[in-house]
C-alpha cells in the first residue's frame, strides 16, 4: 500500500515506513536510545531526501522520548537537575545545528556531511562500546566476585570550575561538562535527525560517570526538549518536516518499543551493550561503503527554484 508524503513529494510503501518505525522503537525499548541513528540512514537509503528524512525523524524522536519518559519519570529515574543543565547546552547546540544544516544545504554538502558524521560517530562509539563490553565480560568470567571499585574514575575534566552537586547522580562535577555535552548532542540532533541518545548514554556513563539507572531517564528528558526544538526550527526555517512520514514512524515505534523493553529485561547488560555495539558498527560500515563506492550517477539535482 502506497501513501503520498506531501513534504517529501513522493509516494512510499506504508509498511516499509511502519517497519522502519518499529525497528527504531525496538532499539528505543531495548537500549533507551531513540533509534534515529538507524532510522535516518535507512530513510535516506529508501530514497527520502536527506533533509526531509532528518527533520521528520527528529519529530518521531519527540514521540519516542515522551513515551519512554512516561515510565522513567514514574520510576524516579530522571535527574532533573542534570537534565536541565544538559538542556541548557542542548537548546543552544540544536539551534546552532539547524542554522548549520541550512547553510550546508545551501552549498550542496548536506548529504555528504550527514553520511560522514554518521560514519565517524557510529564507528567511534561502536568500537568503544564493543571493547568495553568484551572487557567486562572477560573480567567477570575470570573473576566473578570482583570487588566493587570506585563509583567512577576521575579524569582531568573533573577539575573544571563551576562545580555543581547532582544528588541523584551522586556527582559533584563542573556544570560546564554537561552543558558542553548537551551542546554537542544538540548539534548532532539537528544535523543527523537523531535524539542523540546513542552518544549521550555512553557519554553520561563513561564521561560524566553517572550511575546507569538514571542515565536513560535523564537523557530522555533532555532529548524530548531538544528534539522538539529541532522540529520547530526545521519546520520554521527549512519546511522539511513531513508529518505524514513522522506519524507512520511513530505508529511503528509505538509497537516496537514495548517489545524491545521486554527483550531488554531478559538480557544481561553486557550482552545488550555488545549487541548494540555490533549494530552501530554495521550501520557505520554500510554508510562508509556508500561513500567509498563509485556512485551509479555522479550527478544529482539540488532544489528547483521557480523564478517569478
Amino acid at each position: 500500500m502506497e501513501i503520498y508524503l506531501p513534504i517529501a513529494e513522493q509516494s512510499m510503501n506504508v509498511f516499509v515506513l511502519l517497519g522502519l518505525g518499529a525497528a527504531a522503537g525496538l532499539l528505543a525499548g531495548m537500549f533507551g536510545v531513540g533509534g534515529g541513528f538507524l532510522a535516518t540512514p535507512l530513510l535516506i537509503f529508501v530514497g527520502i531526501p536527506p533533509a526531509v528524512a532528518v527533520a521528520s525523524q527528529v519529530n518521531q524522536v519527540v514521540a519516542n522520548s515522551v513515551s519512554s519518559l512516561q515510565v522513567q519519570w514514574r520510576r524516579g529515574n530522571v535527574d532533573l537537575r542534570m537534565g536541565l543543565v544538559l538542556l541548557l547546552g542542548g537548546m543552544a547546540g540544536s539551534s546552532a545545528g539547524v542554522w548549520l544544516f541550512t547553510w550546508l544545504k545551501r552549498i550542496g554538502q548536506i548529504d555528504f556531511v550527514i553520511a560522514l558524521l554518521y560514519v565517524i560517530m557510529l564507528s567511534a562509539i561502536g568500537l568503544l562500546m564493543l571493547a568495553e563490553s568484551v572487557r567486562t565480560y572477560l573480567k567477570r568470567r575470570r573473576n566473578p566476585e570482583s570487588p566493587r571499585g570506585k563509583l567512577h574514575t576521575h579524569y582531568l575534566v573533573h577539575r573544571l570550575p563551576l562545580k555543581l552537586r547532582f544528588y541523584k547522580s551522586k556527582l559533584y562535577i563542573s556544570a560546564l561538562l554537561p552543558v558542553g555535552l548537551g551542546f554537542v548532542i544538540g548539534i548532532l540532533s539537528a544535523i543527523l535527525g537523531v535524539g542523540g541518545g546513542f552518544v549521550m548514554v555512553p557519554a553520561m556513563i563513561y564521561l560524566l560517570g553517572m550511575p546507569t539507572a538514571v542515565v536513560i531517564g535523564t537523557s530522555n528528558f533532555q532529548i524530548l526538549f531538544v528534539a522538539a526544538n529541532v522540529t520547530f526550527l526545521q519546520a520554521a526555517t527549512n519546511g522539511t518536516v513531513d508529518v505524514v512520514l513522522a506519524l507512520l514512524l511513530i505508529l511503528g515505534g509505538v509497537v516496537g518499543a514495548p517489545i524491545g523493553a521486554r527483550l531488554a529485561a531478559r538480557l544481561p547488560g553486557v550482552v545488550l551493550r555488545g549487541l548494540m555495539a555490533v549494530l552501530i558498527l554495521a550501520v557505520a560500515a554500510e554508510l562508509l561503503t556508500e561513500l567509498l563506492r563509485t556512485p551509479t550517477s555522479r550527478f544529482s539535482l539540488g532544489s528547483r527554484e521557480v523564478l517569478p
Partner: protein
Amino acid sequence: MSRRLIAGTAGLILMAVAAHAQGPRLDSPGAQLPGPSLGGQTDPGTPPSVPADSSTPELIVDLSRARVSITSAFQGESILMFGMFDPPGEIVVVVAGPAARETVMRKERFLGLWLNTGRQSFDDVPAYYAIAASQPLQRLLARGAGGEILSLEDRLSTIKAIGPRAPAELAKFRSGLVDVKRQEGLYPAAIGQVTVQAGRLFRVDLPFPSRLPEGVYDVKAYLLRDGKIVAAVSRPLPVGKVGFSAQLAGWASNEGALYGLGAILMALVAGWLGGAVMRRL
C-alpha cells in the same frame, strides 16, 4: 446451510450496490470538470468522417483528465490524450512541464570519498518533457517540420547556463541533468507511440511518475502533413496537490512555525497515547 446461502446472497447484493455506486464516480472526475473546449465545437451528432463545413477544425483533442491531482494515494498517473484529425497526416504530442532553475551537482572522488565538488545552474529547464509521435520522430522532423517541435536534446540546447564554464564541461552537466531527470521518470527516454485508428482517430498515453513537480504543464498536439505543421492544439494540464496533502504542504510552506508546533503536538499526543496503550497490552 441456508444461513450461509443468505449471507452469500446478501454479500453479492452489497457488492453489486457498491460497484454501482462506484461505477460513475470512477470515470467522472475528468468528465465532470468543465473540460476546456479546444479546437472548436464538436457535435456528437455529426458523423466524424464528414467535415461539416470549413469551420470544423482539422485537429480536435481532449485529455482523459482535466488535471493531475496529487492526493495522499498518488503513485503517478497515466493520462490519455485522444482526438481526431483530418487525414492524411501524422500526429506529434509534446508535453512540457513548467520551466524553472535547476542546479546540477557533480560528485568527484576526494581522499577516497565521493562528494559534490562541482555545481552548475541552468535557467529555463522544463520540469518534465516527453514527446510522442505516430511515426518515428526523426523521420517526421527530417522532412522539415522542425521549427516548433523540439526533441528533448533540442529543447535542452536552449537552456541558459548560469555563470561561465567551458562548453565541454557544460555539456557534461547538461547530460548529467538529463540522466537524473530520466531516472526520476521526468524525461521519459522512450518516445511514446501515438496510435492512429481508422486513419483519423488517435490516442496516446502520457505517463507521469509519482515524484512530479507541481505547476501547469503544456500538452500540445501537432498535425503534420508533408512534414509541415498544419494544425496545433495546446491544452494546459495543471498538476497540483489536492485535499489533505495540499493542505499540509500549504501549511508547511506558508505557516512554518505553526506547522512545527502542530508537528510537535502531534508527536507528543501520539507518543504519550501510544506508550500508555501499549503498556496495558
